[in-house]
C-alpha cells in the first residue's frame, strides 16, 4: 500500500509539469470548444451563458447534448438524466483514482476531481500503472484542458464560422485516438485481453439494446467484475 502513498504526492512542480504534458492535446480540446461555442451560439444561447456553461459544466459531450434538447423550454428530468448518463463515467474514474486520492486530505481529494476529464484521467492512470507520480497530470493537465476549453468556447462564439465542418477534418476523432493510444500503452497479457474483450462486448451489447449512454458504465463494470474474479497473481 505504501507505493500508492508515494505516488500520491502533489506539489506545484508536478502540477506545472502536468499542465505542460497535456498542452499538445489541449489545442485539440480548444478546437472542440470552438465547435461547441459555435453550435451554442447558433442555437441562440447568450454569450455569457455559453461561457458560463463551459466553465461550470466542463463536460463537452453533455453540453452538446443539452443543445440538442434546447428550445423555448427545456424539460428538467430528461436534462438531468441525459447529463448524468453521459457523465456517469466520471464516477468510475473517481473510483479508479481512489487508491491514490485517499492519501490526500479531503479538500485536495475532491478539489482535484473538479478537473477530472477523460484525457487527463487516462494519462494519469497510465503513469500511475507505470509507477510514476501522476496527480500533477490529473490536476495540472485538467487545468490545461479547462483553460483551452474556455479559450475554444470563446473563439467559437466570436469566430466559429471559420471552421465550417470539424468532422470533415477529423477533429471528432482526437479524443478517441488519444484514449486508444492510452489503452495500448497499458500492460499486455492474457488477463488484460480477456478483460478488454468482456468490456468491449458488453459495451456493444448495451449500446445496441440498453438505454442510450449506458454503454460506458455497463462495459466498464463488466470488465471490472472479470478483473475481480480473475485476480492478478502475487502482490
Amino acid at each position, binding site marked *: 500500500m505504501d507505493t500508492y502513498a508515494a505516488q500520491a504526492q502533489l506539489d506545484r512542480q508536478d502540477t506545472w509539469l502536468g499542465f505542460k504534458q497535456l498542452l499538445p492535446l489541449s489545442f485539440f480540446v480548444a478546437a472542440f470548444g470552438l465547435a461547441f461555442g459555435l453550435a451554442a451560439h447558433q442555437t441562440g444561447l447568450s454569450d455569457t451563458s455559453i461561457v458560463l456553461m463551459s466553465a461550470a459544466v466542463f463536460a463537452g459531450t453533455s453540453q452538446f447534448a*443539452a443543445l440538442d434538447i434546447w428550445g423555448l423550454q427545456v424539460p428538467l428530468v430528461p436534462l438531468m438524466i441525459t447529463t448524468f448518463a453521459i457523465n456517469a463515467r466520471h464516477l468510475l474514474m473517481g473510483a479508479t483514482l*481512489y487508491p491514490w486520492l485517499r492519501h490526500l486530505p479531503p479538500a485536495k481529494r475532491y478539489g482535484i476531481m473538479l478537473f477530472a476529464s477523460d484525457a487527463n484521467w487516462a494519462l494519469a492512470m497510465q503513469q500511475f500503472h507505470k509507477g510514476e507520480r501522476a496527480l500533477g497530470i490529473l490536476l495540472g493537465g485538467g487545468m490545461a484542458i479547462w483553460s483551452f476549453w474556455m479559450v475554444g468556447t470563446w473563439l467559437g462564439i466570436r469566430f466559429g464560422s471559420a471552421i465550417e465542418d470539424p468532422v470533415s477534418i477529423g477533429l471528432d*476523432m482526437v479524443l*478517441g*485516438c488519444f484514449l486508444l493510444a492510452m489503452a495500448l500503452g497499458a500492460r499486455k497479457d492474457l488477463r488484460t485481453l480477456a478483460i478488454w474483450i468482456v*468490456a468491449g462486448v458488453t459495451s456493444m451489447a448495451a449500446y445496441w439494446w440498453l438505454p442510450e449512454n449506458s454503454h460506458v458504465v455497463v462495459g466498464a463494470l463488466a470488465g471490472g467484475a472479470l478483473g*475481480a474474479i480473475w485476480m492478478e497473481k502475487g502482490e
Partner: protein
Amino acid sequence: MMLDTAGNGTLIIIAVMAVVTLFTRLGGVLVMSFIPINRRVQNFISAMSGSVLIAILTPQAVNGDGGARAALLATGLVMLVLKKPLPAIAAGVLTAALWRQML
C-alpha cells in the same frame, strides 16, 4: 417540469447540469471512501480503469464511419510501432481527415 430558456431559466439549466456533473466527478471518490480496499476491490478497480477506455472506444469503432475506423486503426498501428501517443493521435486524425476528403 419544463424550464424556460428565457431570462434566468438558462442559468438554472446550467446550474442543474453543473450540479449533476459535479456529483459524477465527486461521487465515485466518495463511494469508494466507504468501501474497504482489499485485494479483490483493488483488482476490480484496476480492471475497470482499462475497461472504461475500451467501453468508450468499441461503439466508436463498430458504429463509426469508415473515417473513424481508419483513424483508430492508424492510431493503433503507430502506437504499437512507435509507442508514442502524439504521433499516433496525429496519424489517426490525419487519416480520418484524408478519408473523409477523398471519399
